[in-house]
């Protein structure tokens, strides 16, 4: 059944690749503008073997992991405090509400001046991109825990820190993971944009270099890698969430 599902998922991709190959081979548009699927796969192989793709992917991956980890951690911690303590929520909510709507890349010019064009720039951008959605989802998750459940824990002898760790946070996990899952993909989009604008290494930088050399095949390879990484990150979080909550949800 599982194999059947995988096959069912693969068939449209195979059909898409075949149509793509066919259209490219009838040369309606020049090959340097619209390379065939096989040409793109050949380029993917060359870039992988030469190490160019992996080096750039490693640079982007490092930035995403560090920025996303720090942003999510800060979002969960701040969200937990704001979700639990009304006075802190009232104090910080207006600031967060003002900053959240600013598009992440809107911070780039300011951050370029403040921290310069270096490795920190994409990391800070990803931090900002991860922080706010995870913050709001954590607050929502914590607020959605029923007061009866909290009171029940209290009557059973649990102190406030115990209630937080044994009842509130486990019950907020689905909401927290919704934020993490959505932002895992977004972090990749942000890192690519930052690398395209300012950083000389990474998949985004490879993309922008390929554009200047009119290497559409390399651009498509980069986009494919980006797509796979976004999907992989989202799926990893979906998997962890399912493992943590499937028994009781």
């Amino acid at each position, binding site marked *: 059944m599982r194999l059947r599902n995988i096959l069912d998922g693969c068939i449209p991709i195979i059909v898409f690749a075949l149509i793509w190959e066919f259209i490219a081979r009838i040369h309606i548009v020049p090959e340097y503008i619209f390379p065939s699927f096989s040409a793109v796969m050949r380029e993917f192989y060359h870039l992988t073997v030469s190490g160019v793709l992996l080096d750039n992917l490693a640079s982007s991956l490092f930035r995403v992991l560090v920025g996303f980890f720090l942003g999510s951690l800060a979002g969960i911690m701040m969200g937990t405090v704001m979700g639990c303590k009304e006075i802190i929520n009232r104090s910080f909510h207006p600031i967060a509400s003002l900053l959240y709507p600013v598009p992440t890349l809107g911070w780039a010019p300011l951050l370029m001046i403040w921290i310069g064009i270096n490795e920190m720039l994409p990391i800070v951008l990803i931090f900002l991109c991860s922080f706010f959605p995870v913050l709001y989802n954590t607050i929502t998750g914590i607020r959605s825990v029923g007061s009866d459940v909290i009171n*029940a824990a209290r*009557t*059973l002898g649990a102190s406030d820190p115990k209630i937080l760790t044994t009842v509130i946070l486990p019950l907020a996990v689905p909401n927290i993971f919704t934020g993490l899952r959505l932002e895992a993909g977004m972090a990749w989009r942000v890192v690519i944009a930052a690398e395209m604008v300012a950083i000389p290494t990474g998949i985004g930088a490879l993309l922008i270099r390929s554009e200047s050399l009119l290497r559409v095949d390399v651009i498509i390879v980069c986009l494919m890698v980006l797509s796979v990484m976004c999907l992989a990150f989202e799926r990893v979080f979906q998997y962890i969430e399912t493992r943590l909550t499937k028994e009781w949800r």
Partner: protein
Amino acid sequence: MPDIELKNIRNYVFNDLNMEIFDKELLVVTGPNGAGKSTLLATIAGLVNYDGTVLFDGVTVDRIPTNERKIGYLFQNLALFPHLNVASNIGYGMAVKGDGKTEIAQNVDELLRLMRIEHLRDRYPKNLSGGERQRVALARALAVSPEVLLLDEPFNSMDNGTCQCMRKEIAKIQKDLGITMVLVTHNPEEAEEMGDRIITIAGGKIRETETQCFCSSQNVHNTHNMQNCAGCTIDCYCKR
């Protein structure tokens, strides 16, 4: 087990409420919606703010937080922890107190047997029926060896048969363990059947008190009231 006194209780429902709940008695609280029945339980548990004094055995507990009042509380919606299975729900109170795993497992097994829900040990609340949830919630409340058990409309979601059965079980547990118990209900039949004493609350005030004295051949479980039934004959059932 404590004798509970509420003195001059004032909050968003009560305006100078005074009452006493006797040691080992099963007090039933009735009254219309919004009368303050659940708030009375929450006040005893320390879950709501109030002015006035709550005393357990003559000692004020106003400054004692809920988690240290040694109460068991069966909430109206049961409030089982959805992320924990039945065994973990029952063992929760012992776990947060730092009891050993073996001790917790033994007590949980005992309560599962007492409630006749051994087969539900590994199930999650979402997979339980209303009656099963009820038993789990009651086992969880009893697991912490409470001195006072507060039951907020515990039979609401049950069919008639399960309800009858649970009433008997709770009354038996109360008698066996000698716990002071306060039961909130809308159901007059339930109140009559279970209560040693019945009070009716309306508008945040006690409107009426009925004392049922089961004398002599019946189990005398509210002996403190015996002096009030001087005229009673054997097997009498008197209301005051």
